Every structure is written in structure tokens, then in C-alpha cells.
């Protein structure tokens, strides 16, 4: 995918990313690192919050089931 502003670059371990045309290699390396760190923390945050809600939901629903049966 390519347009006026962005070009596709292949980042080892990350995959394809669209980077702004004219970004220096040094700037790009920093940008990819920041992007990759943010993406990883989004995945970890999502996984942890999903698991926490899952545990709460299970405990509450089984608690209600055994109280009300």
C-alpha cells in the first residue's frame, strides 16, 4: 500500500508498517520502537483486563448460581 505521504516498510519481527515518506532512518527506528512498545502494552493490557473480568464474571455468576439454586 502506498500513497503520497506513506510508504510500506518491512520491519523484522513486526511485519509491514506504513511510515511517513522522508523520515530519516534514525527517526524511523525510534518511531518503530515506540509504536511496537505501545502495541505490545495494548496487547498485554487487553489480555490482563479480559482475564480479570473473566475471573470476576465467573466467580459472581457461580456464586449467584449456588446461592439461588
Amino acid at each position, binding site marked *: 500500500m502506498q500513497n503520497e505521504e506513506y510508504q510500506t516498510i518491512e520491519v523484522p519481527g513486526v511485519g509491514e508498517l506504513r511510515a511517513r515518506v522522508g523520515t530519516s532512518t534514525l527517526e524511523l527506528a525510534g518511531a518503530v520502537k515506540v509504536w511496537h512498545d*505501545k502495541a505490545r502494552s495494548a496487547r498485554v493490557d*487487553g489480555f490482563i483486563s479480559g482475564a480479570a473480568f473473566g475471573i470476576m464474571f465467573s466467580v459472581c455468576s457461580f456464586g449467584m448460581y449456588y446461592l439461588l439454586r
Partner: protein
Amino acid sequence: MIDPYPHPFYGSDTGALERQNPLPVGIYSVDLRNDQVPEFRRWQQGRSAVKVLKTNDNGSFSWLLFSVSSPTLWATGLGFPSIAKATDERPQAFEPTKDPTDQIADALPSPAAFAIPSFLLTTVGIGLAIYLFRNELFENAKRRVSDYRSSRRRRVES
């Protein structure tokens, strides 16, 4: 004067650090933290040979371009000044950095995309565990309670 350690932003020609003290006649630039600027101003005061040509500050750092028309003792606490030209502008490297993620067009993954499978996996896992072990868990607990009660009753009766 060619500096053996070129200035990182100017290179080895115009950006060479001036280590001589007093400063020879010439034009110099210096990068200072904003809290160092008053010290520079105190040094400048009373030295008619020193003339500030340009200043530029970005909030936390100040860049000053100044000329020295006769050899002048430098305030060594401010670090070495760089040899400069009257046409020099503040180096780009001192501009505030842009948001690096702005350079990447791809959207960051949403935490919800990972939260939903994780939620389902945890719920199903706990549900399955309770379903498989509930007889053992609850029947054993019930048996222990009734054993305790009957043994207590026997003790009371005897």
C-alpha cells in the same frame, strides 16, 4: 582551529569548540539550559566587546549567537562555546521532537481485541473446571460438614 572532536550538530568546520580562554575575536554560539542564561547575561554585562546577535529558546534550552570584538575572558562554567558564523541559525536538532508514532500510519491495536478472547477463555476455563470438579468439591465439603455435625452430636449425647 579544527577540533579533534567535531561538534555533533555543526561538524568539524564551523562547529569546532573554542577551548581557548580568553576567547579570540570571532563569532560563537552556545547552548545553555534556561537556568544558565542569567549567568551568561552577568558575564556579558560590562563587556562591551561582547554582543549577542541572535537568541532562540525552546522552553528548556536557549541557543545564543554572540560576537567577541576583542579577546575576552570566558565564563568557563557555561561550557565551551562553538565557533560559528553570523548567518548561523539554531540547529534543527534542538527543536522539540515530533511525536514519533506520528511517523507510522498504522493504527495501534485496540486492547479490546485482546480483552474479549481473554475474557471468553478465562470464563470458559473456570466454568469447565467448576463443572468437572463440582461434585468432588461440593460433595466432599458437604460430607465433611455432616461428619463434623454428627461427631459433635455424638459427643454431646455421650
